[in-house]
């Protein structure tokens, strides 16, 4: 698309729905699970049968408080439940129990790391708890089936201020939120399972000369992946600019306000959604079947005490204290456990740099092979610390350390025990190395000739001989020492 000299600022706010990782639903004790046959986790409450009444899940409230506190929100002293009234088959009571004017948490912020190592702050307007709806399944042409397994599952709705101004910031915020709720154990946030869903609000502020124009806000419903989010926002920015170019006066927020759009996955574009005239008359009122919630200081404090160091704080500490690159810090803060291993190793006096190299070298490779997190490959902080210190002391070299790391994933033994058992301790006994060197010289006359000949092949041949000796030592010899003795013997 042609961009003229217009100065375009995308303005994006994001609503994120997160299903909480409770054992049971928000208002009944059916299991909160995914993927089971339809209507196998339902009861009078979540089917909305006559006479059934809701009882609130304490854990869901606590997990929400935890997210609120981690987002630096004010957690309300007093909150209540409101009914949002609208008719839909996946909403069996035809009202959703939600929070209207007194959200559980409000006025927070999420600072997100950007690829250039800087950060950006997105303000959080509010976070409130509500029940999820069931699922409408459009299997047959003429009919829709309704599965209520998801009905009444706890859903935290986190609403940002419109503080994002690029696709990168939107994705950064979404990913940081995803990482945060998983970090806190508040949600598994599995996208394929619909446990995290996005609704971006997008418009543009366009400056042409001294005049500023604002395009109508588009709200795109129910996006289920980062990819869809990325494409939707990018598409909307282009679409709105093009529409504005067509009609700079008419395509404005003052004239058109806000419209709902859906994302068409196949065509990778957003499409206008017509609304019922009464769609926004939800007739909110306090749910008379439920008691309000008072979150006093001692309760808030006890929930806050469960929150450890948050991902961004750790990311900053790693870049500053350990001098890691933004990417390395990012890789180590995917989950709390990986960094915990590193920190535990460092606490034993190990060198952070070497620890990071092992975790992001062998650790990441093994995690990749096994399709798990680095922390799950099976090396503890204590093992890593000892291994790093052995390497520092020259007791094992880098090659041996890597092998020991691999073996440690299968055993509870200490690195020293493994090194001894596998004969991987560094040999600094020069008699032994001399013997190996002599053995190699005898076995490789051609390489010896090349290495001493002074020609083009010299360097390669010397490397070859070193490698042969290292192999004989099973990696236990220090390469520098091998090379020194080899030079001596070859008279170099």
């Amino acid at each position: 698309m042609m961009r003229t000299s217009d100065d375009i600022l995308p303005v994006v706010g994001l609503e994120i729905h997160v299903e909480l990782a409770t054992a049971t639903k928000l208002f009944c004790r059916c299991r909160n699970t995914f993927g089971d046959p339809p209507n196998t986790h339902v009861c009078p409450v979540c089917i909305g049968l006559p006479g059934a009444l809701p009882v609130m899940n304490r854990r869901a409230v606590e997990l929400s408080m935890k997210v609120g506190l981690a987002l630096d929100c004010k957690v309300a002293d007093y909150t209540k439940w409101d009914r949002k009234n609208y008719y839909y088959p996946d909403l069996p009571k035809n009202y959703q129990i939600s929070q209207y004017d007194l959200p559980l948490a409000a006025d927070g912020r999420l600072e997100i790391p950007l690829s250039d190592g800087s950060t950006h702050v997105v303000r959080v307007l509010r976070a409130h708890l509500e029940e999820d709806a069931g699922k409408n399944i459009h299997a047959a042409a003429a009919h829709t089936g309704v599965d209520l397994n998801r009905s009444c599952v706890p859903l935290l709705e986190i609403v940002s201020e419109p503080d994002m101004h690029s696709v990168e910031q939107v994705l950064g915020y979404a990913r940081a939120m995803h990482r945060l709720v998983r970090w806190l154990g508040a949600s598994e946030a599995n996208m394929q399972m619909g446990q995290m869903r996005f609704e971006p609000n997008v418009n543009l502020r366009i400056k042409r000369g001294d005049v500023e124009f604002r395009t109508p806000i588009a709200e795109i419903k129910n996006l289920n992946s980062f990819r869809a989010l990325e494409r939707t926002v990018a598409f909307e920015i282009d679409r709105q600019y093009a529409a504005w170019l067509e009609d700079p006066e008419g395509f404005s927020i003052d004239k058109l306000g806000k419209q709902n759009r859906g994302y068409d996955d196949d065509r990778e574009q957003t499409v206008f959604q017509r609304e019922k005239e009464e769609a926004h008359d939800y007739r909110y009122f306090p749910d008379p079947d439920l008691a309000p919630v008072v979150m006093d200081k001692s309760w808030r404090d006890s929930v806050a005490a469960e929150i450890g160091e948050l991902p961004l704080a750790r990311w900053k500490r790693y870049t500053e204290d350990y001098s890691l690159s933004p990417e390395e810090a990012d890789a180590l803060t995917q989950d709390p456990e990986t960094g915990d291993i590193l920190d535990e190793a460092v606490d034993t006096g190990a060198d952070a740099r070497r620890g990071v190299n092992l975790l992001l070298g062998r650790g990441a490779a093994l995690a990749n092979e096994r399709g798990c997190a680095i922390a799950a490959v099976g090396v503890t902080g204590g093992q890593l610390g000892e291994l790093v210190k052995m390497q520092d002391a020259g007791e094992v070299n880098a090659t041996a350390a890597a092998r020991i790391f691999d073996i440690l994933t299968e055993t509870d033994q200490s690195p020293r025990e493994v090194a001894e058992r596998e004969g991987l301790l560094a040999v600094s006994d020069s008699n032994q190395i001399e013997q190996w060197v002599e053995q190699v010289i005898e076995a490789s006359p051609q390489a010896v000739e090349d290495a001493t000949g002074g020609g083009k092949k010299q360097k390669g041949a010397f490397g070859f001989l070193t490698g042969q000796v290292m192999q004989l030592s099973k990696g236990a010899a220090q390469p520098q020492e091998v090379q020194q003795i080899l030079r001596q013997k070859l008279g170099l």
Partner: protein
Amino acid sequence: MTDITELSAVELRDAITAGDISAVAAAEAYLEAIDRIDPRLHAYNEVHRDRAMERASDIDRRLSAGERPGPLAGVPVALKDNLCTAYGRTTCSSAILADYRSPFTATAVRKLEDAGAIVLGKTNLDEFAMGSTTETSATGPTLNPWDTGRVPGGSSGGSAAAVSAGICAAALGSDTGGSIRQPAAFCGVVGFRPTYGRVSRYGVVTYGSSLDQVGPLARDVSDCALLTAAISGHDPADSTSVPADVPDYPATVDTPLENLKIGVVREFLSDSLDADIRQAIDSAAETYASLGAEVREVSLPYSAIDRDDEGNISSHAVACYYIVAMAEASSNLARFDGVHFGHRTAERVRDIVELYSRTRAEGFGDEVKRRVMLGTYTLSAGYYDAYYNKAMKVRRLIHRDFERAFETVDVLLGPVAPTVAYRLGEKADNPLQMYLGDIYTISVNLAGLPGLSIPGGVSKAGLPLGIQLIGPVFSEQTLLRAGHMFEQASGIRRLRPDLAGT
């Protein structure tokens, strides 16, 4: 031998427990009475004959095995048909639930059965408990056993008529705005609405969530105490149920109260009250005075009845009550939409909206439609503050009135309804007039208080007159004892209609 159906629930329980009467004989006697009498009254929507007989023989078996099946052992009871039972149908007297079978039983019903009661069947009510005459029932009206040209009151009209006619020993009803107390008054029986939160609402098909409460209808106050004790108590399945201990009502009901202070509500004795009822209140006050109680006048300004120049009466409390009840109802009844249970239109529909709208148009009667629409209106954009929120504030003012009154008296005395039982059809075309008939009962619901309706005599025309005792929250014990004192002193108890003429 005495007619089993003449005995009170306490007497019958004692006789069954002592082995003088078998539970099976009691159940048979009542089922026979139902066959004989109910066709003339239509108090029942459904009778659970086989199940009742099975449960009765189970009680007999347990008694002969030396067990104690509970304080209601073998007592045959009736349930208002808005209480869910996992047996039979639960219809709320609505076409939309005509064939609805609940997969679970209401907590209050379960507790009653756990105490040994035998459920005879489900009684008629105004559709979804919305009405004061039982005429809005989709199964047709229940008739008043005292005069079958008159209504039994409502919405628990079927339960009141059944107790009055002796076709159950006692019954459960629900009271959202007077639905236990008013039909009790119209039918000459005792009706008790406990404090909000005293009895679980789990399994009571909801009308007004913040107002509904289950309670007994019975022949005398002792029977009321027996049933109240059986159904009361905290239920974790109802978030509005109060975790408070339940006193032993039956053990204390016949202990007179010393230094009782009775307040007669000034605003309730207006000229819109029938002279006969006014007379019954006055003589009840005299009876209490003769028992040593101190009787004084108290004021509930926000529950006052106003009369304009044209003679139209009005009341802030009635307006407040109907706004709250209808708003809650509009949302509570949204679930009746033909998708997951209940009636669905058989017509071809264009889309889901038409499926909803036609199903509800077919399934709901006019009174339900009126209330759902009014409630929707008061909650809708632009009206919430003027109506619903305003009503919630007035509700607090009404509540404060009661708190202030209870600083000086123990119990309030007043009428239940402004008149005796209406003639059939008398209020049918004038919903507002019907709402105004609830003028003396609705404040109690708004304030969440317990209210006891007891017979205060019979009018010159031969119809029962009700009087009401109101207490502060959780004063059930006091109210029952005060009611029992009146029964004993006045001799007005166990009124029975002459059913020969019906």
